[in-house]
């Protein structure tokens, strides 16, 4: 079996690094421990994740909180081993620093490896070293708990052992006679020393190299739902998002950039706008302008009053031309071939070949908090406050834009009002940095209008998929898939490396090539047109469209084979990955599965493996006045190791709602070289009244920890499409479905 996907993924990693030049794997840079970026004014930083001072225990959670509960779960990892009360912990995001690289970012998370507890081998060492060498401090890819699981428990455990050693020295009592409890060292006579009193001594002691970690049977916090640390702030309006930053003398700004990607200003007249109420300054760039005023709304009013003529950009003119270019890319050389086993061409050269084509639109992220950043430039130093998923990239881009050294830029990362991949770029930070430089010593907050946000996204790329398949004795004998979509990885790689590469991008086909189906002749290829439209990572990335393509195709083949969609999947999945089959059986049991539904009711099922997790969903719909009403969604998910069940349940539910919103009504279209949608009335999402009931079961049959934030999204669209087919006999092969069928809204 000539599977090449594992090697291809390495090629992606190694190829990117090789081009950066001078970066050697296995060398000192990859092995050296990054320096601890913390230097608290008093107390002590025992390691990059922990400060103990008179305020108490502060855990640095270097992954940004965007709703996924990461501050709570990562703090719990430290609390578990440090032996402190979770709710007593202060959490800070901390600075942008190499020490906080995300080691799970490019790890291999294929289902074949999910039954091994720990990754191993040279490939793993390299996948681990790449983010470190590149200082990739990134919140994304459903990686945060996986990356932190060992690191932050070790941080807690080493600190605890060092504090015990400090107490032992001070009391002249052997460590074996000391205990810890809730942030204190307890001596044999039951006297207590708070950790804070020992911290400075402990900081002078060499920490143990390999502290003992508790087995899961001894866990006090992990594996159990914890009260989230952010809830009180978030229900009282006191949680500080980037847009809420307030500083003395703050001025408020907005920007308006060319709506034509790659375009510029042809002609601009700011004379009326300049004289409007509250306006302090208008700054004109090549491709847009910024208005600084005393109030955000006044800035937005003045921005509307600027008369500007834009030159045309480089992107295709309209949606039809965009998809024409996507289709045309199938004539180019494939960008990736992530799976090629058996002999697909030979297998499909005879017998009846079933051909199906699917399509997915471009999508905006539409985070609730529009893009914004607040910047203060003074004494050759830039401070920037902005909710973001990659602070190191922001630091470097701002330094570059302002001609500063990296250490002259300080990035502050507050709560994000939604991320979903949008805030992994840097474009929302740069205008604030540039405007702040225009008015030194005055803090400037730049808030984008919703329209600016929706028309200047890094979109989930539109995609076209063609499948060819053959059935033999009710089994899929051959499956040949090809997908074409702009590469979402290319812009990020350009940001991280400075090079405009067209790397092999496995995300073009992920969600299809990596599915656990036993098919003798199985090939998936990806094609990457370059369209000049900014694209990026959108919750579950390739899985968001390819999960729909693949699991729709499987359903079509089940129908052609005259088989029940559940039984057909189990037959192909069980030989390949038992936990995935278990997830399907579990969800079927929860939903009391049958594809023989009563009149007016439809049921669909789908399973997608993504981010190291197995997620099966069943959707029940009913006809209501000629419209589709989604009544229930059942989810069974195997994440291997589950650290906080309530948070995982919320993530799976939210991710499915995000996927259903897009499947039903999400679509970004183009006209005159610009995005047509601007605000929620023309780019809406599910709301309270059309959100179905959710039923979630969590499984831990895989041994390796999988991701939580994204895997709930991919199965939602195909489960819905399959339910619609079951109800109406109509097979929807293009998203959004509301173009083809009415939904109760």
């Amino acid at each position, binding site marked *: 079996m000539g599977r090449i996907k594992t090697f291809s993924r390495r090629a992606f990693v190694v190829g990117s690094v090789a081009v950066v030049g001078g970066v050697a794997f296995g060398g000192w840079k990859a092995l050296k421990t990054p320096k601890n970026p913390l230097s608290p004014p008093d107390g002590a930083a025992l390691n990059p994740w922990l400060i103990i001072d008179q305020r108490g225990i502060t855990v640095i959670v270097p992954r940004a909180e965007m709703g996924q509960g990461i501050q709570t779960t990562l703090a719990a990892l430290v609390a578990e081993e440090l032996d402190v009360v979770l709710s007593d912990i202060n959490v800070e995001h901390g600075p942008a620093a190499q020490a906080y690289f995300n080691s799970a970012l490019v790890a291999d998370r294929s289902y074949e490896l999910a039954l091994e507890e720990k990754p191993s081998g040279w490939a793993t060492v390299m996948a681990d070293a790449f983010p470190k060498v590149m200082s990739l401090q990134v919140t994304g890819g459903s990686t945060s708990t996986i990356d932190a699981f060992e690191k932050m428990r070790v941080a807690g455990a080493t600190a605890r052992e060092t504090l015990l050693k400090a107490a032992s020295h001070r009391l002249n009592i052997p460590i074996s006679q000391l205990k810890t409890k809730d942030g204190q060292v307890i001596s044999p006579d039951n006297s207590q020393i708070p950790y804070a009193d020992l911290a400075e001594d402990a900081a002078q002691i060499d920490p143990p190299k390999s502290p003992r970690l508790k087995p899961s049977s001894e866990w006090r916090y992990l594996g159990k739902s914890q009260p989230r640390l952010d809830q009180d702030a978030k229900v*009282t309006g006191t949680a500080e998002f980037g847009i809420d930053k307030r500083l003395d003398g703050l001025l408020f700004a907005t920007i308006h950039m060319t709506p034509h990607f790659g375009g510029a200003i042809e002609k601009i007249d700011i004379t009326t706008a300049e004289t409007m109420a509250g306006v302090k300054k208008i700054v004109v760039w090549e491709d847009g302008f910024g208005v600084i005023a005393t109030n955000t*709304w006044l800035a937005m009013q003045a921005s509307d009053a600027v008369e500007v003529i834009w030159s045309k950009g480089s992107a295709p003119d309209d949606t039809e031309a965009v998809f024409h270019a996507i289709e045309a890319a199938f004539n180019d050389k494939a960008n990736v071939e992530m799976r090629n086993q058996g002999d697909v061409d030979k297998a499909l050269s005879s017998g009846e070949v079933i051909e199906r084509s699917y399509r997915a639109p471009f999508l905006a992220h539409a*985070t609730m*908090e529009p893009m914004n950043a607040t910047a203060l430039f003074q004494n050759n130093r830039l401070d920037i406050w902005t909710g973001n998923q990659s602070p190191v990239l922001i630091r470097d881009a701002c330094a570059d834009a302002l001609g500063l050294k990296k250490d002259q830029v300080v990035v502050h990362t507050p709560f994000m*009002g*939604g991320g979903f991949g949008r805030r992994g770029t840097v474009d929302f930070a740069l205008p604030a940095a540039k405007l702040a430089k225009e008015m030194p010593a005055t803090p400037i907050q730049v808030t984008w209008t919703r329209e600016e946000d929706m028309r200047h996204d890094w979109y989930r790329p539109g995609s076209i998929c063609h499948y060819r398949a053959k059935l033999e004795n009710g089994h899929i004998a051959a499956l040949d898939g090809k997908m074409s979509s702009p590469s979402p990885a290319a812009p990020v790689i350009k940001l991280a490396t400075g090079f405009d590469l067209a790397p092999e991008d496995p995300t073009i086909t992920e969600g299809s090539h990596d599915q656990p189906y036993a098919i003798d002749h199985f090939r998936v290829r990806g094609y990457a047109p370059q369209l000049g439209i900014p694209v990026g990572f959108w919750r579950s990335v390739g899985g968001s469209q390819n999960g729909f393509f693949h699991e729709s195709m499987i359903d079509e083949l089940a129908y052609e084979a005259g088989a029940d969609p559940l039984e057909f999947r189990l037959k192909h999945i069980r030989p390949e990955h038992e936990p995935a089959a278990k997830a399907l059986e579990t969800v079927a049991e929860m939903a009391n599965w049958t594809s023989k539904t009563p009149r007016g009711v439809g049921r669909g099922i789908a399973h997608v493996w993504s981010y190291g997790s197995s997620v099966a969903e069943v959707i029940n719909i009913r006809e209501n006045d000629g419209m589709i009403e989604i009544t229930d969604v059942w989810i069974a998910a195997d994440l291997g190791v589950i650290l906080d069940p309530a948070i995982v349940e919320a993530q799976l539910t939210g991710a499915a709602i995000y996927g259903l919103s897009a499947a039903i009504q999400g679509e970004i279209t183009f006209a005159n070289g610009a995005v047509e949608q601007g605000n929620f009335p023309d780019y809406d999402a599910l*709301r309270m009244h059309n959100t179905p009931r959710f039923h979630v079961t969590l499984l831990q049959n895989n041994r390796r920890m999988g991701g939580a934030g994204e895997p709930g999204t991919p199965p939602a669209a195909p489960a819905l499409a399959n339910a619609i087919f079951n109800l109406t006999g109509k097979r929807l092969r293009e998203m959004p479905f509301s173009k083809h069928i009415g939904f109760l809204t």
Partner: protein
Amino acid sequence: MAKRIRVNGQDHDIDLPPDVPLLWILRDALNLTGTKFGCGVASCGACTVHIDGKAVRSCQVALEDVWGDVTTIEGHGKPQALSSLQKSWVDHQVAQCGYCQSGQIMQAAALLAENPSPSDADIDEAMAGNLCRCGTYPRMRAAIHSTAKMLQEA
């Protein structure tokens, strides 16, 4: 000429043009940042506040039109003194990113003030204008029902 408005029981003289929306007075002039900007066109509900107890979209109310006492999320309850609705929200661990939650809570508070035991259909109708991209709807619904139950038992 400054216009006087009453917010969370306190008078403020606002010296801004009469057409500036209440949202931007709260956020940028009074630093009451709990009320959020989401769309500017009354389609997401993130900016929901109360005027004389009724839920309104503050992005659509011009300064000159503020007709009564304004209550924002900061006036509804505080971290040390949560309202019963906020307590339920915490009990159900509703918030994910949290950005829309001020508006959701203000909308739900207005609903419960008018209808102390809302049905699912009542909740659907009252909350339909409030968008949440994280998809916290199931837990919000549960939190509204719990609050109604708690208030009835009290």
